[in-house]
């Protein structure tokens, strides 16, 4: 305790500053949204009348059920895609494992709404695939009809959450877990049902609840597919068409937050007290076996089919961006660079804004993330856990809710010099992005800090470095890899954020890439240039993801030496 007493004011002041920031830009706006939802629009008194109205309106009831249906079906379809892939990689010596791992992150580098229109052209009623099926078999499959389209697009994009979590859970099962069961007489499906499946369950549920949350909150995909009767789109439509005072947007927001919290709670329950990572030092994961030739062919067939499916939005987007006219045909009639030219005339502003907003937001996230990590793990400041908790809580706040909250809260707050309400100043977009992506950067920073042994700091202090000097010369350099990884993750995901941005962009000149794609995709003529812009977005995010992957790999290699030393001590 003593060693903190002398320097308590430094981190203390920092903690108060961060606390204030989170209070103003996270707690107040969200609190405001919830409060308004329970407020009588005319008298201002607390009431449940808005909720009664909500459930008495058939459109909203339908939207609610649709959202639930789409989210659950997306979990089911994502599971159907992810389960075989996870199984192949963890149980067999399968050359396609690398393919699966790569394939696992490709969908994540593009938000679902970007590829939605391209998917319509590939899988829609008159899309390429159905034209071919119709030619050969004389019928069509309604892949993209109504809610099916949303489910398909969301599943293709979010199944990696299940794949990654489930694979990790399977890989973390020590071989001895399985062998001891065999030794006691279990085999085959009984072994799987009683040992492997329960041990992998927490990982699966964590992934599945994340998919549920993402799909339930998504706004861009249904809107671009012209599906308006879902919750998140309704929230946006009510606020943008009827106005900021319409209580229905707030009611929907409360429901969105409630379901997000529910999904996180389920995932928390699944993982709580079940750190099933059982791999020992030197122990391998589950037993792998070689595949017989025909099994190998079967596995590759499944993997390639899924890969084609997963890449279809990207393929479609590329075709769309280079195609001339693409309608009622398998492929576009011809190819051209013209869309990129058209796009470029208006897009340089979008790209500049995106780099500026996402860059600033990621910078804020890393600074806050490092500070919060340090305060939580290295100081005894009272309430430090709350700082962590609240910052992580941003995960549960859908972008559209944060957007509505900002509009409502900051619309009357005039920024002095620019003489604008804060709610319509571009800086608010940066703040929204920073708040939304803070959990990602914070996790990276905490992981980085936890790998720095306290003893390394104590050694520096023992040699005469003050707390501040220790942080600067020891902690930050050792954390730099993690901080950089956190920056890139925040940057990449902020660059394609749409839901909060959609609410907060007040002038064309302030709009970022995601908003630009959205704008272009609204009209048939804009689809080509919009797809071109989408390709640019994929490239930005793809490069950023690759960079962060390399950074993490490099730091892990460097870490391994220090980790051994720390472990022995």
């Amino acid at each position: 305790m003593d060693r903190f007493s002398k320097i308590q004011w430094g981190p203390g002041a920092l903690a108060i500053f961060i606390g204030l920031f989170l209070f103003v830009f996270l707690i107040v706006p969200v609190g405001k949204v919830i409060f308004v939802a329970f407020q009588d629009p005319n008298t201002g008194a607390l009431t449940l009348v808005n909720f009664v109205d909500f459930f008495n309106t058939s459109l909203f009831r339908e939207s609610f059920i649709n959202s639930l249906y789409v989210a659950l079906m997306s979990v089911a379809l994502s599971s159907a895609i992810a389960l075989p892939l996870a199984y192949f990689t963890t149980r067999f010596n399968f050359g396609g494992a690398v393919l699966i791992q790569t394939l696992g992150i490709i969908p994540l580098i593009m938000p679902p709404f970007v590829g939605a229109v391209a998917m319509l052209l590939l899988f829609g009623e008159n899309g390429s695939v159905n034209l071919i099926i119709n030619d050969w078999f004389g019928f069509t499959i309604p892949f993209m009809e109504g809610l099916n389209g949303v489910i398909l697009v969301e599943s293709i994009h979010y199944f990696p959450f299940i794949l990654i979590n489930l694979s990790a859970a399977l890989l973390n099962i020590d071989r001895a877990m399985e062998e001891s069961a065999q030794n006691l007489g279990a085999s085959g499906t009984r072994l799987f049902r009683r040992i492997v499946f329960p041990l992998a369950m927490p990982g699966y549920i964590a992934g599945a609840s994340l998919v549920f949350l993402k799909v339930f909150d998504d706004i861009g995909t249904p809107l671009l597919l012209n599906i308006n009767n879902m919750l998140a789109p309704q929230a946006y439509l009510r606020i943008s068409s009827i106005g900021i005072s319409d209580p229905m947007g707030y009611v929907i927001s409360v429901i969105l937050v409630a379901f997000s919290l529910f999904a996180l709670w389920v995932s928390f329950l699944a993982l709580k007290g079940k750190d099933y990572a059982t791999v020992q030092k030197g122990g391998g994961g589950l037993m792998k076996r070689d595949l017989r030739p025909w099994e190998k062919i079967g596995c590759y067939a499944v993997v390639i089919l899924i890969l084609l499916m997963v890449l279809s939005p990207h393929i479609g987007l590329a075709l769309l961006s280079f195609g001339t006219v693409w309608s009622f045909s398998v492929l576009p009639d011809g190819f051209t660079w013209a869309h990129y030219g058209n796009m470029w005339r208006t897009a340089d502003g979008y790209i500049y804004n995106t780099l500026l907003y996402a860059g600033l937001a990621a910078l804020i996230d890393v600074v806050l993330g490092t500070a919060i990590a340090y305060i939580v793990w290295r100081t005894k400041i009272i309430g430090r856990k709350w700082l962590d908790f609240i910052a992580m809580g941003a995960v549960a706040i859908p972008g559209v809710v944060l957007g509505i909250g900002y509009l409502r809260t900051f619309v009357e707050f005039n920024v002095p010099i620019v003489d604008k309400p804060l709610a319509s100043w571009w800086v608010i977009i940066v703040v929204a992005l920073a708040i939304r992506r803070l959990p990602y950067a914070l996790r990276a920073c905490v992981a980085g800090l936890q790998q720095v042994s306290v003893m390394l700091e104590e050694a520096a202090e023992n040699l005469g470095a003050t707390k501040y000097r220790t942080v600067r010369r020891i902690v930050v350099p050792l954390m730099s890899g993690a901080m950089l990884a956190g920056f890139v993750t925040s940057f990449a995901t902020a660059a394609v954020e749409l839901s909060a941005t959609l609410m907060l962009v007040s002038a064309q000149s302030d709009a970022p890439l995601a908003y630009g794609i959205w704008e272009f995709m609204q009209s048939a003529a804009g689809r080509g240039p919009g797809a071109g812009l989408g390709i640019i977005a994929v490239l930005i995010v793809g490069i950023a993801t690759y960079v962060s992957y390399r950074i993490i790999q490099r730091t892990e290699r460097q870490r391994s030496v220090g980790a051994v030393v720390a472990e022995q001590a």
Partner: protein
Amino acid sequence: MTDIRPEAVGVTIEDVSLSFGTTEVLKGITLKIEPGEFFTFLGPSGSGKSTLLRAIAGFGPTPAGRILIGDDDVTHLVPWRRNVGMVFQSYALWPHMTVRKNVAFGLEERKVGAREISSRVDAALDLVGLREFAERRPSQLSGGQQQRVALARTVVVEPRVLLLDEPLSNLDANLRVQMRRDILELQRELKLTTIFVTHDQEEANTTSDRIAVLNDGLIQQVGSPMELYDNPANRFVAYFLGTANLIDGRVEFEATTPVFQADDGTRISLAGRELPAGAGTAMFRPQDLTIGKAGADDAAAGGVVLPGSIRHREFLGSLVRYSVRVGTREILVDDSHHAGGRIFDVGEDVDLHLDVDRVQVLGV
């Protein structure tokens, strides 16, 4: 436990070889383990001892050769049909099941009735003294308790053979001594043929009826702990079990008397021994020498006198171990210690008296 236990069975290993890819891990192992015996595979890491144990349990690639449990050839049998109980180094307790469920697992797989399962699980937990922990999760137990659960989970199914894969390596020193006694007691009580894998000579010596010393995929020697210590078959066994002074040289004959001629010129007459001539290694333990002042005519000590000077001294409580420079080599000597006893200092010149009767000549 039920009163009538199955008759203890032996394990026969016939010319077993096994490779991982191009690496030969076992190179023709032949062994016979007697029914009811506490048998140990002792060897350094990479010696193949764990691989051999796992082959008996049916894990890993199918080896060449034959493995018999009792009279049954199990070489090609799947692990879950062998009925050999294995305790894993990591214990491998399933974290999603309570202690009771863990212990009941094997009986459930054997389709034993619910009532019998319940009573046998209770009995097994009583045996390891963990009845009151039955409803806990493995993560709520200490390492030693987890070890006991793993043991209970294995013996409850009444396996024909008990296999222990370095079961004590994850415990701290005090607990290790306690656990190895408990395991031995349990083994004696159940009269269960047991194979124990370890790299720790003390563990092997204190528990085993017989030990097989393995190195580099080959059996170096099989015997009781004392036989191995007193009559090691080769350098490796001499070095791995206890501390040994090893001097390379050759056996020559002066008339009919064999003499060990060390490479550095030291000669040790081995009158009355029957030894073949040729290259060999003289081996003697630190306690086979006595240490005395240089030049002192200590006729009582007798034996060959090796003059040298003290390089290091380690005080080990009941004895003092000196490292003495003799010619170009260092010889370890143990001198028993008691309060007020004689102590030599580093740098002091001393004479070592070697009792030649205790010198063994090992083949190359």
